[in-house]
């Protein structure tokens, strides 16, 4: 079993896994009305389905969607193992540095904004995210940070009157 298309293989796998997870979750919720005591509802799958469909419960739509997703994911997986593609359709190298830097930058923004305010968080954000690029020159980064901190304050706090903490908790 040779992987003919790497990207499709991992996409298909992702779809199947996500679909299964959502499907399992969906079974925790009600599909529809419970079987009435004098109705032989378990006898026929179609009859049961039509009974459920009359009053779809919370789990009805998600379960259907996740099953569809699993099926499509399986199709993508199958195609990735059977149909030829140029050069194996490789996933290619990951840009680990920009990826981690950006994720860390956004997360630190989230962590720092409320306790420390805009004035401290923005320069840190600019500093961290500038690490994601190819070049890092201190002067440029500091200048950028100053301009953007001031700009952010002018646009969002003064201009749009949004409620964003500006100074750390031990100051303002």
């Amino acid at each position, binding site marked *: 079993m040779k992987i003919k298309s790497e990207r499709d293989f991992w996409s298909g796998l992702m779809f199947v896994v996500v679909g299964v997870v959502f499907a399992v979750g969906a079974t925790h919720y009600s599909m529809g009305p419970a079987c009435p005591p004098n109705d032989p509802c378990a006898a026929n799958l179609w009859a049961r389905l039509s009974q459920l469909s009359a009053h779809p419960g919370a789990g009805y739509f998600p379960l259907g969607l996740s099953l569809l997703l699993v099926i499509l994911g399986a199709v993508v997986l199958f195609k990735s193992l059977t149909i030829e593609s140029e050069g194996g359709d490789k996933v290619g190298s990951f840009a680990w540095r920009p990826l981690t830097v*950006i994720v860390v930058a956004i997360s630190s923004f989230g962590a720092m904004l409320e306790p420390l305010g805009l004035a401290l968080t923005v320069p840190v954000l600019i500093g961290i995210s500038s690490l994601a690029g190819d070049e890092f020159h201190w002067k440029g980064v500091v200048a950028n940070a100053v301009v953007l901190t001031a700009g952010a304050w002018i646009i969002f706090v003064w201009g749009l009157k949004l409620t964003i903490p500006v100074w750390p908790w031990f100051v303002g």
Partner: protein
Amino acid sequence: MDLLHNLGIGFGVAFTATNLLYGFFGCILGTLIGVLPGIGPVATIAMLLPSTYALDATPALIMLAGIYYGAQYGGSTTAILINVPGESSSVVTAIDGYQMARQGRAGAALSVAALGSFFAGCVGTVIIAAFAPPLTELAFKFGPAEYFSLMVLGLIGAVVLASGSLVKAIAMILLGLLLAQINTDVISGTARYSFDIPQLTDGIGFVVIAMGVFGFGEIISNLGQPAEHREVFTSKVKGLWPTMRDFHEAWPSVLRGTALGSVLGVLPGGGALLASFASYTVEKKLTRNPRIPFGKGAIQGVAGPESANNAGAQTSFIPMLTLGIPPNAVMALMVGAMTIKGIQPGPQVMTSNPQLFWGLIASMWVGNAMLVILNLPLIGMWIKLLTVPYRFLFPAITLFCCIGVYTLSNSTFDVYLTALFAFIGYMFYKLGCEPAPLLLGFILGPMMEENLRRALLLSRGDWTTFVTRPLSSGLLIAAALLIVIVTLPSISKKREVAFSED
């Protein structure tokens, strides 16, 4: 005549100082992001949505609309001058436009693009004004089954007319629909998939997904590639006005492009991108013996696609404004903006908020006029912007995205979610899964579920209701036909060719 009366209301609203100001701001911003590669209208509109809280509905929508069609103008400037399309819909303009620039005819290319776009924009506005009322009448005949089928058609159409693997695109739609299921069920009140996290009981904000997947996903993948060296033609831009011969050759293409773009913009999945590609193919087929062959600087290759992409951008507002169904990702965000302002998008918007409706339409014409003025004389300024190194731009974009997400509901949880979706968005990019269908599915998810359940409730559990009701079955048949047509081997080859024309 009703049309004139409605347009009169519209212009009365559009020409107020506030609306003109916000429209102007939207056009400038749109041109700006159109010129800058690496950020597009989807990410920008997503970033600005939180700031529309402070504005009234009409100026907010006027501004956002200005960003969308303004980006079409800006994208063509860089496509022609430095062979870097700022917008995906300007990719075809770069083919002949850049060649024209290299031959010293950049001015002619730029002005033909701007004037063609203006003409198309005007026509598009008139079409919206003319067709909106009858379409809205039709929409009132729609019941839940019809709405469900229409949304299915819309989603299928959106992926069929786009490039890339059809199966994966449909799977992305399903994934988007599923992500929208993380919420509290309207009918039963059960909190679904919330894992006991209170912030999840209301669902994931679509701005979070839009910014994470589109904005940051693109930034990360841009950063992953080394910077390239580009030739810039600023010094050679002289003689802005095209010659009589250029005019003579270009105007049939402008007419054809406008017509094609107007039709394709309305279709689900349509809009500027599809219109420009289709127009290029049509121009190539229909122009016999062009003075300069296509690919080497034919003015028809600039005039047609540019008119088409503008017409497509305008008419893609029609399904959103009349039926409440967004045909593409940008319109989906506009639906979101209307919802934020408490306006339920759909056929009743025209009657309940006529100022908003007609004011928005009239402002598109005003916006197009502003853009011609902005673009032609100020080209040098836009080009200077491109010399700002990316390493200053992307932290700024990151900052605006973060603040934007935070201010939605003053929630740091949303910021963390955005970080997660930035990671996921990059994974999608690496795996070749397109994010636009996911966003569309996500926005339409709750509406689809509601209509499905209502249709089933009304039919007492009978699934055949979707095919026995005539309108609904017509829509579903159209969706099925679309899938069949696209999977036919001959068409799928043409589809690949059309999308690899550059």
